[in-house]
């Protein structure tokens, strides 16, 4: 980068400051490099970068230089103008100089901080109501997708659900019907025995068999309603719950 390119870059970086201020500052540094002549390259190295010069001018305009910078034995120093690769010579004449520069200490401190931070691992802030609301929103928003592409799946699920509902109703009705029918047959059989003993006995026997079937059905119902359905409901609830709180519970 020659001095002209350097100053053009500075000028570009200062595009937004008042014209007069910019012209003044740019003229100063441009003249400086011209006066430097052969030493212009060294002067530019000392300048650092166009960005650094631009920020010096900008901060001076804003009146920030009074507090920010400091004139030290190494010249003018301001943290803000220090570039990442801006080297500061270690002061070997002082005790702290031997233990690595400030830069290194700061880096160590930073590493320490980040290590501690990782160790502490702050829990991610979540909120259950918010999650549920987001899920509902997601379900509604994604409705076209799962209604379309997932139509078949929805159909299968609905069919399965209908079948289940059918079984539930059928089992209950069958049990009641068998018990009622058995009881009825028994009553009719006893009444019939008065006139036609053999036929009545047959009817009574059939009634007992039907009642037996009814009891069997009742036991099946108890098993089905009492165990299977609660289990299914629990599974479904857990499945949905897992979908919502999945991540937090997996821990």
């Amino acid at each position, binding site marked *: 980068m020659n001095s002209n390119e350097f100053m053009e870059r500075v000028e570009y970086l200062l595009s937004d400051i008042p014209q007069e201020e910019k012209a003044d500052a740019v003229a*100063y540094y441009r003249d400086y490099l011209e006066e430097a002549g052969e030493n212009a390259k060294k002067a530019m190295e000392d300048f650092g970068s166009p960005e650094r010069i631009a920020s010096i001018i900008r901060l001076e305009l804003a009146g920030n230089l009074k507090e920010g910078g400091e*004139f030290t034995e*190494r010249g003018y120093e301001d943290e803000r103008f220090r570039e990442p690769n801006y080297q500061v010579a270690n002061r070997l004449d002082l005790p702290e100089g031997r233990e690595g520069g400030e830069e290194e200490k700061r880096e160590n401190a930073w590493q320490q901080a980040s290590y501690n931070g990782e160790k502490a691992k702050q829990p991610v802030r979540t909120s259950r109501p918010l999650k549920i609301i987001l899920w509902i929103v997601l379900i509604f928003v994604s409705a076209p997708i799962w209604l379309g592409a997932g139509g078949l799946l929805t159909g299968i699920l609905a069919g399965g659900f209908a079948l289940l509902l059918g079984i539930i109703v059928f089992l209950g009705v069958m049990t009641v019907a068998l018990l009622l029918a058995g009881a009825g047959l028994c009553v009719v059989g006893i009444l019939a025995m008065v006139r036609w003993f053999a036929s009545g006995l047959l009817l009574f026997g059939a009634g007992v068999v039907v009642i037996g079937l009814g009891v069997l059905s009742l036991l099946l119902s108890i098993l089905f309603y009492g165990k299977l359905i609660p289990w299914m409901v629990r599974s479904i609830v857990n499945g949905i719950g897992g979908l919502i709180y999945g991540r937090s519970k997996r821990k």
Partner: protein
Amino acid sequence: MIFNTGAALLDAIVLAVVSRTVKGTYGYKITQDVRGAIEVSESTLYPVLRRLLKEDCLEVYDLAIDGRNRRYYRITEKGRTQLNLYRSEWAIYSGKISHILEELTDEQ
């Protein structure tokens, strides 16, 4: 140099450098002269000169040299007053520091 140079001392040095010529002097030369006394970066002095201009301690004028304008800085009356203040303050301060740093074994 291991001693810090405060903003006031830098102002004093710059004023002293500029006051040495009646005609005044220009940015590059001021920087080189100041660098003769203390270590400052080449980019340092623009904000300082600007501040001194704003405080009316310096004034500028343009002079055509080799077909282009060179901006000259010249000390004003106010600047000279300020410089004299700095000089007397520095004399007291540096005298005290020198005195205390001198190796005096018996203080009678």
